[in-house]
């Protein structure tokens, strides 16, 4: 029986990984968990129950007796874990998904130093296999076919992408361990329930639109519904979303296989929508007038510039044409169609999140 050490187990992908490991193995799972001012184990259990509920499962049916938390923090030396720790596999999913310049230090500390410290702890614990959750967007501004291979940070467009490239470098160069780098694309909610537990990617994008709608409404009532905004995006390019359960299923399948070290794309590929269609759908769900799309170098007016700046982090998602090659992932997964999950319609994913956000925002001060 193996012992899996999981960082970021209270996060979106990390939580789904733990649930998948519980389903696919009889192994013990240790979640490295920040106590966040409370009890690390209680926090981990609560987050796993929340994730299970979001994915349509009864929390009481989970074999949580096989999961325990170790209090720690990836930004501390050897993650701040004292005493003996034994594990066979490290699943490194902890990451900061922030992007603003003011978070540059935090992003680097969590994503780069955090990876270094997770590897140091893994080494001390006797780990032989590292499965790192990275992102398909380490490719940055590169376009065309994106291969499952090493990329430097020449194409990185923000602190986040740069940090993930550096983190991959640390894992790739980790000596004495089998090191797999798993690169999901834009992770969205569960393929069946739509449920999600943290809200970046499509959700962050949708939230930025909702916030922008609110600002416009406070500035000039009704403007968002009549004025067509212009966005600088590659409208016809595909945008790769993948359901969180598909990421977890494929990651664990590769992680439990004898797949060699290297990069694996956990992407949806076929069936992904176009950027323009996705944005139209999100905009429609929020009641915006149908947006127009502009070339990357086209000037925008002041209002459109404001949205453009706010969506800058998503530049790699929505600008440029890229297809993620999955040859290595397909080879590792073999012919197992059950590991592929249908992508829920973008409109349903966005609507699910918009409802949730609007519920949270009922107490906001009135405009007039």
């Amino acid at each position, binding site marked *: 029986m193996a012992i899996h050490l999981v960082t970021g187990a209270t996060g979106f992908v990390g939580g789904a990984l733990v649930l998948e490991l519980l389903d696919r193995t009889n192994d013990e799972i240790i979640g490295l968990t920040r106590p966040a001012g409370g009890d690390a184990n209680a926090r981990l259990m609560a987050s796993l129950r929340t994730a299970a509920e979001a994915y349509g499962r009864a929390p009481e049916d989970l074999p949580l007796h096989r999961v325990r938390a170790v209090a720690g923090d990836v930004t501390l030396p050897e993650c701040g874990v004292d005493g003996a720790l034994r594990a066979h596999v490290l699943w490194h999913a902890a990451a900061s998904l922030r992007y*603003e310049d003011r978070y540059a230090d935090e992003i680097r500390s969590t994503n780069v130093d955090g990876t270094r410290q997770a590897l140091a702890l893994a080494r001390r614990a006797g780990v032989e296999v590292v499965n790192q959750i990275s992102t398909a967007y380490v490719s940055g501004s590169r376009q065309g076919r994106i291969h499952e291979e090493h990329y430097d940070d020449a194409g990185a467009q923000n602190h986040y992408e740069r940090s993930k490239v550096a983190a991959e470098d640390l894992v790739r160069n980790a000596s004495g361990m089998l090191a797999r780098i798993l690169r999901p694309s834009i992770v969205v909610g569960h393929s069946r329930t739509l449920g999600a537990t943290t809200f970046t990617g499509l959700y962050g994008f949708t939230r*930025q639109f909702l*916030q922008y709608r*609110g*600002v416009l409404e*406070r500035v000039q009532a009704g403007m968002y519904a009549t004025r067509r905004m212009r966005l600088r995006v590659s409208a016809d390019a595909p945008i790769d979303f993948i359901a969180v359960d598909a990421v977890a299923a494929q990651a664990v399948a590769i992680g439990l296989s004898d797949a060699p070290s290297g990069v694996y794309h956990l992407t949806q590929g076929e069936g992904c929508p176009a950027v323009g269609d996705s944005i139209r759908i999100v905009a429609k769900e929020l009641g915006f007038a149908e947006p127009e799309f502009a070339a990357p170098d086209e000037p925008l*007016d002041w209002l459109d510039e404001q949205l453009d700046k706010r969506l800058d982090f998503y530049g790699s998602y929505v600008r440029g044409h890229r297809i993620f090659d999955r040859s290595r992932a397909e080879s590792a997964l073999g012919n197992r169609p059950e590991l592929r999950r249908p992508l829920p319609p973008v409109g349903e994913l966005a609507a699910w999140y918009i409802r949730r956000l609007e519920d949270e925002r009922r107490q*906001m*001060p009135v405009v007039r």
Partner: protein
Amino acid sequence: MSPGSLPPAFVVGTGRCGSTLLTRILSMHPDILSLSELMIFATDLGGRIAETFPEGDVDAAGLWQILGRPHPRQTLMLRQDVMMAEALYRPGPGRRFDRNSGIPAIAATTLPALTDDPDTLFDHVAAIVKELPPAPIGAQYTALFDRLRDDAGARMWVERSGGTLRIVRRLREHFRDARFVHIVRDGRDTALSMSRHYGFRLALAAAQITEILGVDPYESTDRRWEGDLPDSLIPYLPERFDAEAFRRDETPLPLCGHYWAGELCAGLEELRDLSPERLLTLRYEDLLEDPRAVLERFFRFLLGHANGIDLDRCAALIHRPQSDWRKLPGPVAAELSRACRPGFDALAAFAGEVR
């Protein structure tokens, strides 16, 4: 209404449109009690509109909560030494309110504009409020303002706050017999003035932060979505307020232009069905060109005559402002004009209907 008294009036506008000047002139007329900046401070620069007009009956304590207590945005500005010039209460030796206590909404400008001893008047107002039985909020405000009007020996009260076009629906709803003077200034000059004004700077930043955080940052400590805030808005968070950055900043002109247009479009919609007896529209530019004629119209609308005041003395208060959008660089002026266009269109349509 007391014998001889007249229905009240509100001077409404977008803010930075010349309404402060009208208040100064109003205060020179013995028949008028001029209530300055009450609504803007009661609503805490627009952040507490619903709280300023609660539903149902309001008791004395509820009314005092609105008028007699300091509110967070103003207190922050006071403590950070970036209070807008319109706030007349000056903390100092012998004064009751200071940076620590904050200044109650009614004491910020309204009372100091009426007396050199605002603390004593504050106590008087508190005593009046204490005696008021529960009633709808409009009746409560009216009872208080009528009493102050009678105490001053005036025939009517006129409330004037910057930016009250935003709450004109509520004013109409709660003050059924009130009349309205709408003062309009060219949106481009208004926007230019707004972009440099501390009150609008905070209010427009607050509007953006509120929508991004999903809570009013000056009322709530929930910072769940702080990561979504652009770097430029961080210095406006109360816990990270940077007074120097605030002073240096200029609210983007197009934002002020869009805001002006939005206020005009929504405000005119609310004023549309008022009869000429209840609505007077004044253009600030006309006031500059022919102050005597405009002021005569103004007082005739309010009092039925323009007696009891030296219009030439009033006109002497009027000076051409220094800011002029025509001096902006061409592309900046063009972008600003585009932002203001819906407001100009709404004004033109409104003028056509009135005609």
